[in-house]
């Protein structure tokens, strides 16, 4: 739509006389994008040809980086599943007409969104075992449950806000129509409002889940051998920064880019009647 509209105007003599008309703007944009590509491409090429040690590269991929990658992937999958599930309930609490439920959900969001994830991880990691006498804490490898609990609690707050926004964006007439047909509030929510709220919230939820992936880098602080730890290991023994940096970048992008594709796919699937694609 927007394209054909602007093209229709470029043939117009009046517009072409101005310096910044549609055609020059388009060329300017392409020129800036070209320069940017050249600069970044050149920088990456310079790193690869002058900085990366390919022998070391091959040596550290397996098992160190592969293991770190699989560990992060596992934590992301579990954390995503749990945080989105919990977030839907947080969102429902946020739109509840029951004052108590609403207040609790709001307080939850304020706390977990208002304090840093790193702080929350430390509270769980060192705070919870302190309830037991020293050395008596029954769970070994407590850092892994800490990671899952921390990521879930923190991101459920963000997903909850996305879900609340999604529900608020569904016109009131939808619930009214459902109720006028004899459906209960719960039926109206489940059958009519939530499927639409889900679509409205998808982009924001996907955005949050990408942040969750990157938040796993904080887990280096609670001694989980994830990607940043792997980088620090290699760097501290070889003094080579760029070789492990490239691997870290590749590993994160191998999760975040497919995640974005999944969100796009879900959005396209929730495009009832196809006005978007």
């Amino acid at each position, binding site marked *: 739509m927007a394209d054909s509209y602007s093209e229709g105007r470029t043939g117009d003599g009046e517009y072409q006389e101005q310096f910044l008309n549609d055609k020059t703007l388009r060329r300017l944009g392409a020129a800036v994008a070209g320069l940017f590509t050249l600069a970044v491409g050149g920088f990456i090429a310079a790193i690869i040809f002058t900085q990366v040690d390919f022998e070391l590269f091959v040596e550290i991929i397996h098992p160190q980086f592969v293991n770190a990658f699989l560990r992060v992937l596992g934590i992301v999958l579990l954390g995503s599943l749990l945080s989105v599930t919990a977030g839907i309930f947080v969102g429902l609490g946020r739109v509840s007409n029951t004052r108590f439920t609403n207040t609790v959900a709001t307080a939850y969001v304020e706390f977990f969104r208002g304090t840093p994830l790193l702080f929350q991880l430390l509270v769980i990691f060192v705070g919870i075992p302190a309830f037991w006498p020293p050395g008596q804490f029954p769970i070994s490898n407590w850092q892994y449950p800490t990671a899952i609990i921390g990521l879930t609690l923190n991101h459920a707050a963000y997903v909850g806000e996305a879900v609340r926004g999604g529900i608020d964006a569904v*016109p009131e*007439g*939808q619930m*009214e*129509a*459902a*109720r*006028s*047909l*004899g*459906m*209960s509030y719960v*039926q109206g929510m489940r*059958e*009519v409002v939530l*499927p*639409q709220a889900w*679509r409205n919230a998808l982009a924001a939820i996907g955005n949050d889940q990408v942040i969750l992936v990157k938040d796993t880098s904080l887990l280096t602080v609670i001694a989980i051998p994830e990607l940043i730890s792997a980088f620090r290991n290699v760097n501290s023994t070889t003094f080579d920064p760029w070789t492990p940096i490239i691997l870290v970048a590749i590993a994160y992008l191998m999760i975040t880019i497919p995640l974005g594709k999944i969100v796009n796919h879900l959005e396209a699937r*929730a495009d*009832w*009647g*196809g*006005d978007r694609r």
Partner: protein
Amino acid sequence: MSLLEFDEVDKYFGETHVLKDVDLNVEEGEVCVIIGPSGSGKSTLLRCANRLEEIQGGEIRLEGQSISAADADINRLRQRIGMVFQSFNLFPHKTARENVTLAPTKVKGLKEGDAERRADELLDRVGLGAQSNSYPNQLSGGQQQRVAIARALAMDPHVMLFDEVTSALDPELVGEVLDVMHDLAEEGMTMLVVTHEMGFAREVGDRIVLMADGKVVEDSPPEVFFENPKTDRGKQFLSKLL
């Protein structure tokens, strides 16, 4: 006993008194058309009839059962009251057929196959047999409103409420919706219709109820109301239409 009874109904929005002591009885098989200037309380009255709005005084009864009582089983009562909205309110994530089958399957526990057969019958009846697999955004406004009528009919209501159902439509699409309503009236459906379509009111209505400032100011048969209204408010309203 009338089918639908409004008994001294009072309704406030905050401080504003929007329905003042409204009495109105709708008989079985009757088409009762409510007209009046905007802000007169017509739509509010209709929305109170299936408790989308709470009333603060009086009582509303359907077939003798109170709709407005605190302990009324409203989900059950609403099954007998069909409602069609100005803004259609079709479910955008469901096809025309799914819009019609949703409530019968979820609320009445009808089997999927039976509900679908019934839905196709109803969609045929409103002239949309060929569009049953279309999503609302693939339909015109007039088609969407006809699906909405079929959706309400699927619950086998005893009375249908129409809330300015043609006001959001392009002029050339109004006729197809009014035709469906016309047929429905001829089949004997009890209807309470809020509308600005005076031609429809005159032709299809059994009664014209004029509301102004939250009150019923005239209640006459259409030939009386449009030829020789009984009240000054009625005359005044008619004079502004021309």
